[in-house]
């Protein structure tokens, strides 16, 4: 038995998302998007909005719990929490907080949400020591780490292309996906312009408007609700030693920062990577995925080229189906919360790229930032 465990005490019972838009194209405010996604999750769960009594989010979501509770007309709320850190690192961590709040009895129905209308606001702030050298954006510092990993383990562009093509393949099956109806070939990928080597345009996630939400409640309450419950097996958040050291001084540099989390995750769930049926791995940039897969035990570093192949990544019969809704690259960049919803869909059996009999799904949130987080769910 793991020293820390939330296993099977809490279930995910409702999913919601708005229509996903290209950046700047949402016709309503970001706050309205958040409300809409939450109300859809409430409807999906078959509860009433006044049952909600908790909120969890991440990445300094601008739509704070007090405003949402007021706008939604909740009789009260009993839990509000935010995971520290930027990007998508807190996606699974917010689910962990919601699960913890339910298990501890702080709240009965906690909604995890993320809303973004990036056209209405700026993006993340940045740090110093790097700007004078033209190092400004995540694409560049992620590329520096990925290039080191590729050098150390003889990884080629083919591994990155496999991630992107799998995302686009799955998006063609998913009408929610922003890239639905826009298939991508390897030739188009190779011809697309460089953003920063080794990332072509298509290796980079989109920028989108929209919102996503999911509702957690106790396993007991979940039994009487509308949807097949999907249980939280385990969650973990954190980062390795000095992961946020400035000027690229994170000691374990060619890393996605999951090395200290994954063992805790599997121990809590009492399973190993061989038991996972489908994975949703955050891809702000494609090159982070192979490193994340290594750190979750799906292959050795020198086995990346064998695992990271299109045929392995696509549902229904790939060896390790990856990002089955299209992910950040081709469904929607909802800072990875769309990946959590997709993991739940796989365990419900309702994905548009369903893995037959999928029981256990893994989500890895926000590689290379600090903290990152992880989630395992089962049907």
């Amino acid at each position, binding site marked *: 038995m793991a020293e820390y465990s939330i296993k099977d005490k809490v279930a995910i019972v409702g999913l919601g998302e708005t229509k996903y838009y290209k950046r700047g194209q949402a016709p309503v405010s970001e706050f309205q998007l958040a409300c809409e996604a939450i109300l859809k999750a409430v409807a999906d769960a078959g509860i009433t909005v006044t049952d909600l009594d908790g909120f969890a989010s991440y990445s300094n979501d601008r739509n704070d719990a007090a405003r949402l509770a007021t706008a939604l007309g909740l009789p009260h709320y009993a839990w509000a929490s935010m995971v520290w850190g930027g990007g998508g690192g807190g996606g699974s961590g917010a689910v962990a907080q919601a699960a913890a709040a339910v298990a501890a009895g702080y709240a009965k129905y906690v909604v995890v949400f993320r809303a973004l209308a990036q056209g209405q606001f700026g993006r993340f702030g940045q740090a*110093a*020591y*790097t*700007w*004078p*050298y*033209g*190092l*400004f*954006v995540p*694409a*560049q510092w992620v*590329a*520096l*780490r990925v*290039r*080191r990993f590729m*050098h150390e383990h003889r990884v080629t562009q083919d591994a990155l292309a496999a991630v992107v093509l799998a995302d686009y393949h799955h998006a063609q099956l998913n009408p929610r996906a922003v890239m639905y109806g826009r298939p991508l070939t390897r030739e188009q990928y190779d011809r697309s*312009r*460089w*953003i*920063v*080597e*080794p990332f072509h345009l298509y290796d980079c996630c989109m920028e989108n408007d929209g919102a996503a939400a999911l509702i957690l409640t106790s396993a007991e309450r979940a039994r009487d609700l509308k949807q097949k419950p999907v249980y939280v097996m385990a969650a973990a958040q954190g980062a390795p030693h*000095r992961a946020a*050291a*400035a*000027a*690229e*001084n994170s000691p374990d*540099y*060619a890393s996605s920062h999951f090395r200290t989390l994954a063992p805790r995750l599997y121990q809590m769930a009492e399973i190993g990577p061989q038991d996972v049926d489908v994975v949703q791995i955050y891809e702000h940039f494609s090159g982070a995925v192979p490193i994340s897969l290594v750190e979750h035990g799906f292959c050795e570093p020198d086995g990346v080229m064998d695992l990271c192949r299109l045929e392995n990544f696509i549902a229904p019969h790939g060896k390790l189906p990856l990002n089955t809704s299209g992910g950040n690259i081709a469904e929607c960049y909802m800072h990875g919360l769309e990946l959590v919803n997709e993991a739940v869909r796989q365990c419900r059996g309702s994905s548009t790229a369903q893995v037959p009999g999928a029981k256990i799904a893994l989500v890895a949130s926000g590689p290379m930032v600090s903290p990152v987080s992880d989630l395992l769910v089962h049907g």
Partner: protein
Amino acid sequence: MAENSPYYLPEGLPAPKAQRDGMDAGFWEALRRHELVVQQCARCQSLQFAPEWICHKCQGGNLGWHRVSGRGRLYSWVRSWNPVHPALKQAGPFIIAVVELPDANNLRMVGNLLGDPMQDAPFDAEVEAVFEDHPEATLVQWKLVR
């Protein structure tokens, strides 16, 4: 890159500035003298970069500066194409380098790799510091040691 410019990147990028609290002033002052330094803990002698207010090894609060040779190893580099800042709009691709300092416990610094932006520099190649004086501050850049 302008052929006759003394700088690797176009003018107009943010100039480096010591932090307002003074924590890293010694680093920028050393670069002005064309010296490369990292932080050193007076109590446990550990080296540290980027600067912090306390030593990450012993939590001591008395940190000074330790001069290093300026020889390094090209730990990683990328060729960056997208104009991520308005000043880079007219520029072509450029190379960002992460350099490890073997004589400073493999601490790392970020700079540009001087020379042809289309070069294919080998990982782990030996590089040396080149000081690039701007009106407001001095940058440390890197070039391959042939």
